[in-house]
């Protein structure tokens, strides 16, 4: 009963968020300097006459008032019709589907790696508060937090791909090989550098957060009492520390989907990795309005799902929150 209420509440929030997002994106695009007709015609602009352009505009309903345009667009979206991408000349939903799969692999690897390493770094730093290792980790994280992803990507690319030649310079697959002939290992090989870039940046947040949480826990009354009961060292951190900081860390990691997505946009651009991030940049630069709006909506759902999963895990695992919900 209460779980149903909880899910319903979340769903309502998601829907209202999406509606607001549609509205804002629509207004932004409407007021942007992008002329959809011009974007559609592209380089053939010189060969298309004024009348033809007006015809296209009329055909698309661009002569109608903005409100009407919005509703006809939103109506199509509701039915799952995101329109056709102008640059790929394919339905938006298909473009996003293919791209998303590639991005998901990249983001997934980076997400897991940064989660595990960030958590470990946070624990090591917190346990050695004030010592050299703690200061080193803190310095690393704070420096990284200020490092642009694309810059780090370029550095890695220069060192590992150009100088050392260990990894390919870019792209998601080898050049000149038919897509059905690309093996999994080749795909993975192309994934390593961009994933590494994302993970190296991604650890900062989770490590600093975990460190702070561990410090709080170590100063708590229950750790004091555990020490009074003869617990100490690693055993104490394992028993009480990890138990109490794992949940917030997992929640944070799920909530970091937005940064992950933002990072992948930049990393994919640097590595010419054919993911959703790269499609976003192309769509933006070349005025592919249907694709851009589609990506905005899909990425919003993606980020929202991350937060939702974090919330759900928290409430399923943490006995206090579980109790809270069932006693409401």
């Amino acid at each position: 009963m209460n779980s149903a209420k909880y899910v319903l509440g979340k769903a309502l929030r998601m829907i209202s968020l999406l509606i607001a997002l549609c509205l804002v994106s629509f207004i932004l695009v409407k007021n942007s300097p992008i002329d959809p007709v011009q974007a559609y015609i592209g380089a053939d602009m010189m060969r298309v006459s004024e009348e033809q352009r007006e015809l296209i505009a009329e055909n698309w309903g661009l002569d109608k008032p903005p409100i009407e345009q919005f509703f006809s667009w939103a109506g199509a979206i509701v039915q799952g019709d995101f329109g056709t991408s102008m640059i790929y000349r394919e339905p938006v939903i298909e473009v996003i589907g293919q791209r998303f799969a590639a991005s998901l692999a990249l983001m997934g690897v980076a997400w897991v790696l940064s989660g595990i390493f960030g958590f470990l770094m946070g624990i090591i730093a917190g346990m050695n508060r004030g010592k050299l290792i703690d200061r080193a980790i803190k310095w690393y994280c704070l420096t990284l937090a200020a490092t642009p992803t694309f810059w780090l990507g370029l550095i890695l690319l220069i060192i590992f791909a150009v100088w050392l030649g260990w990894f390919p310079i870019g792209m998601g697959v080898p050049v000149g090989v038919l897509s059905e002939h690309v093996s999994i290992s080749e795909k993975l090989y192309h994934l390593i550098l961009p994933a590494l870039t994302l993970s190296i940046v991604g650890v900062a947040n989770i490590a600093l957060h975990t460190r702070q949480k561990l410090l709080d826990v170590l100063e708590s009354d229950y750790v004091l009492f555990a020490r009074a009961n003869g617990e100490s060292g690693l055993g104490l951190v394992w028993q009480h520390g990890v138990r109490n900081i794992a949940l917030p860390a997992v929640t944070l990691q799920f909530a970091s989907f937005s940064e992950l997505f933002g990072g992948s946009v930049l990393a994919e651009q640097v590595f010419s990795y054919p993911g959703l991030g790269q499609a976003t940049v192309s769509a933006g630069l070349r005025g592919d309005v249907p694709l851009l709006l589609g990506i905005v909506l899909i990425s919003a759902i993606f980020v929202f799902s991350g937060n939702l999963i974090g919330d759900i895990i928290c409430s399923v695992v943490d006995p206090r929150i579980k109790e809270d919900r069932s006693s409401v």
Partner: protein
Amino acid sequence: MNIKNNISNLQHSNLSEQSQYLSGTSRNDLLVVENLSVSFIQYQSGMKQRNLEVICDLNVNVRSGEVVAIVGSSGSGKSLLAHAILGILPSNAKVSGTMIYNGQALTGERQKAIRGSEISLIPQSVNYLDPLMKVGEQVQNTIKTKDAKVRQQQIFQRYQLSKAAGILYPFQLSGGMARRVLVATAVSGGAKLIIADEPTPGLHPEVVAETLSHLKELADQGCGVLMITHDIEAAMKIADRIAVFYAGTTVEVAPIEDFTNTGEALRHPYTKALWKALPENDFTPIPGFQPTPADLPSGCLFEPRCQLRTAACGAGKPEMAELRGGQVRCIHAT
């Protein structure tokens, strides 16, 4: 690390003087605390630091089989005494003085080895339990032997805690249950010295009575119980002796029998005033406030509020002196 070294150093340097310090205490003392001081370094504006003495020259001793209560007002740093005995003060604390447990100096190493087993703490509240660990598991954690689970269940039974109580989380415990779990945790390691820190804060009268009876029972079984409390009435119900804590030190240690009538048997003006301030006695409040650690009077700590003060009282801190089967820190005590 710091505390440990401090304690052991001091104890080494003081060891030779032990016999002199211990003159007033008997041989069957389980715990002797002599001239214990706890201070923290506080950083002020600029590079200035100062030493904030929260506990200063505190003396108390506990024998096996008795309950000694340390009574003092809330927030006056009494808990730090418990933490100092267990060796779990924060790392920026400085400790000096002598602590002797079972005839031997209680060094940092020894504290580490025996806390949770020989010496244990009954904490103030359920906040001292790990919020994400089932309470049964937490009790098992403090039992170092292999049969932890069986022992935990036996101890739970002894404190009328059902088997099902073991799988509850701390936040699910009722007030009375929480108290029993805390006591169960403390006794599970087979402690000989039990330090109860504020065991009766804002509880129902029945829960207070139950908790006190548990403490008394432990003393009757041969444990030494040190009860740190602000509640003099609760202390009087079970304590054999009461040590009165004022502004970071003990100003008097008196047998419980002295707390009768108008308090004429009591030794220190503060103790007498405290006794008179009780609702069932005169209910006369003591004028003034306890000084904070940051601005202690240079002479007798009670001087600013004392009605018996003379010029000599401000000259220096009175030493703890034996008087009529108790101890007192007042130059005019009779």
